[in-house]
């Protein structure tokens, strides 16, 4: 097991698409994420692991442009996180689905796709909805869904638009076994399509599917490199 906080770049390969330089986040005197240097290459598949409060969601939020940095910088596809070009490249699937009360699943998808310049017919998303197990509820309001169905809707929204980097926060929480399997296949498909996939998870088994595991503890980087599920359990006690 390597423990190298100074590592800044991955081995030679495709160019970096997500680069953080001393990116930090604090709330008053509470440090949510200590200065973090990280470089993730295009097409990489990364698992972000750590116990509760380790800074995983904070990192994803900052990379997505949702949270402001207290210090340092984050670049996505060559643009500062939160800039228009970065927003066009990054798709963020949060752990807590945020949906409209008055739009159906299909309308949600059409709306978000339109906001990203996708010109598609209303039934163009049926394949995606079918794969995630939501086709039969496509015309229902997610406001009346269970936690798991809302999570599936949120996942569909994250995948309905063009993207270079997919950031996913605790995607397996609340999903049933078929939903979990469908999500894993969709993440694999997204990666095969050339996107970089970063998944924050408590699930140590997920690291078997990724190229690289980044572990955080109390806002600090404690591991960056390949890892086995046993390594993850040892590192973060997940």
């Amino acid at each position, binding site marked *: 097991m390597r423990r190298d906080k100074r590592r800044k770049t991955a081995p030679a390969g495709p160019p970096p698409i997500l680069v953080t330089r001393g990116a930090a986040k604090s709330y008053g005197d509470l440090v949510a994420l200590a200065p973090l240097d990280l470089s993730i290459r295009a097409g990489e598949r990364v698992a972000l692991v750590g116990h509760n409060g380790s800074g995983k969601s904070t990192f994803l939020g900052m990379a997505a442009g949702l*949270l402001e940095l207290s210090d340092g910088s984050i670049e996505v596809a060559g643009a500062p996180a939160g800039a228009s070009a970065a927003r*066009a490249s990054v798709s963020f699937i949060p752990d807590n689905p945020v949906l409209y009360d008055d739009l159906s699943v299909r309308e949600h998808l059409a709306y*978000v796709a339109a*906001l990203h310049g996708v010109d598609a017919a209303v039934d163009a998303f049926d394949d995606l909805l079918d794969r995630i197990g939501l086709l039969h509820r496509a015309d229902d309001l997610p406001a009346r869904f269970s936690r798991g169905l809302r999570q599936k809707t949120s996942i569909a929204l994250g995948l309905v638009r063009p993207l270079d980097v997919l950031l996913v926060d605790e995607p397996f929480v609340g999903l049933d076994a078929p939903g979990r399997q469908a999500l894993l296949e969709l993440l694999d498909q997204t990666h095969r399509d050339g*996107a970089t996939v970063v998944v924050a998870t408590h699930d140590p088994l997920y690291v078997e599917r990724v190229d690289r595991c980044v572990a955080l503890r109390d806002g600090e980087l404690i591991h960056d490199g390949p890892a086995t599920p046993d390594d993850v359990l040892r590192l973060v006690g997940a």
Partner: protein
Amino acid sequence: MLTAEPDADLELALAEWRGYRRRKRLADVHWIDAMYQAYMTGIFGAVALYFLAAAVGDGPLTPSQLATVAADGADWLGVVVAVALAIGLRSGSRGGPLVLERAEVRHVLLAPVDRARAVRGPVLRQLRFLLFVASVVGVVAGLLASRRLEHHAAAWMACGALFAVTTVLLAYGAALCASVGRLPSWLGTLVSVGLGGLAVADGLGVVNGSPLTAWGRIGLWPDAFSVWGLVAMAVSLAVVAVGLMRVGDLSVEAAERRSTLVGQLRFAATLQDLRTVIVLRRQLAMELPRLRPWVRLRVGGTGRVPVWTRGWRGVLRWPAARVGRMLLLGVAAGLALRGVWAGTTPLLVVAGVALYVAGLDAVEPLAQEIDHPTRSRSVPIERGEVYVRHLAVGVVVMLAVAVVGAAAALLVGPSLGGLAVAAICVVPAALGSVAGAVTSVLSGMPEVSTGDAWSLMPPEVAGMRIMVRAVWPPALAVLGTLPVLAARAAAENGGAAASAAGAAAVAVVVVFMLVGSWVRMRDRMHAWWKAAMDQAFPDGKQREREGAAHAA
């Protein structure tokens, strides 16, 4: 994976979808509901107008009063502008004034849409609504003023509306600029206090030259035209224009936090759930407890006074903003009571409310206990006993706040007699504010229907009860300031001011002890009342049991 059209007009797509959603919403609104809302607004407006007209009166002012209005009116209107500006800066430093739907923050602001164009529409709609309300208020104020002042009513109404609109433009523009410029909350407060203090000092004639007087001159244009009013209008428009130009730089983080909390805050305010309002407001202001306390108490040193120690552990983690706010409230209360001593009796209410607000913070350890009822139920003593023990910390904190207030009051006009009165009044002021705050915190939000005898009362009685529950806590805090009034009355009649204050203070102490007894015995009283009701209305109890069984 889907691909984006390179020449797609994202802003147009956003506009079309927003239009679609608006049409859907409108289609869901029944015309009966819309009529009802208009009807209720009309009734409330008419009632407000009636009370306002009664308060203003309708007799023409005397020449000397007219001269006072001409000399100081603009200065006092400047105080109104200062208050509006303070609200704007405060809102802006917390990500306001706009409150976007949370899903809009997530899906629109994180899409590659031009944020300025995405946000400008909602901003302009909000500003349009505020300007409409300001115009109506300004016209009404102008109409009421015209009954007591010279010149034509139309002129006062027009200038009243213009003053209100210009003030709202300034406040809204300042809020936008503060928001996009990430103005720190403390700086916003500092600017607000500075400008507000200057405006008040200008009104009192202590200083001359509050910049906000220029806005006030607009309201008095029918009496005397001043070019400074035009300058104020230009500044207001410029501030709004700058805010609108930079509106795309808003903080997405603050927008999301605001979208999450403001909705809950409004709901809690609607239910008059003051405790929830306070907690949510703290979250909105990111007012978090300090990780490192101001003074570290010995761990495990709870000894024989665990509640007292727990209370101080909480107080010692208060953020600097809360400490500063309490000191400011103390100063405000002290200055207001100094005004009462000087003869302005209504300032008692200002002092009481300031102390009440500070008291709500001072009883935080008790409020935490109430927020987590399972904790107090898990200890082997009565809940009321735990609550009573919490009062001590609140009283000590409020004594400190009251001492600060007394010091501020004495600094304005130092005297030995004043010192004696202030020293006596500190205790009832602290006790009154804690009594009010603890009553508010323990009462919680008004119960719409509890299934007890109150549910059998006619709406008028139930409504009166809700009103009393809302007014009683701050009234207790005002009661704590009455010894100042007693001292003034004694001094005016040639008596001993300190003795009168002492006698009144004893009455406040008695009231505080009654409140303390209520806190201690509240659960027993409720149990006794419920048993009495069950005995009086056995059918109701039977129905309750049946209802519970049915629900199970």
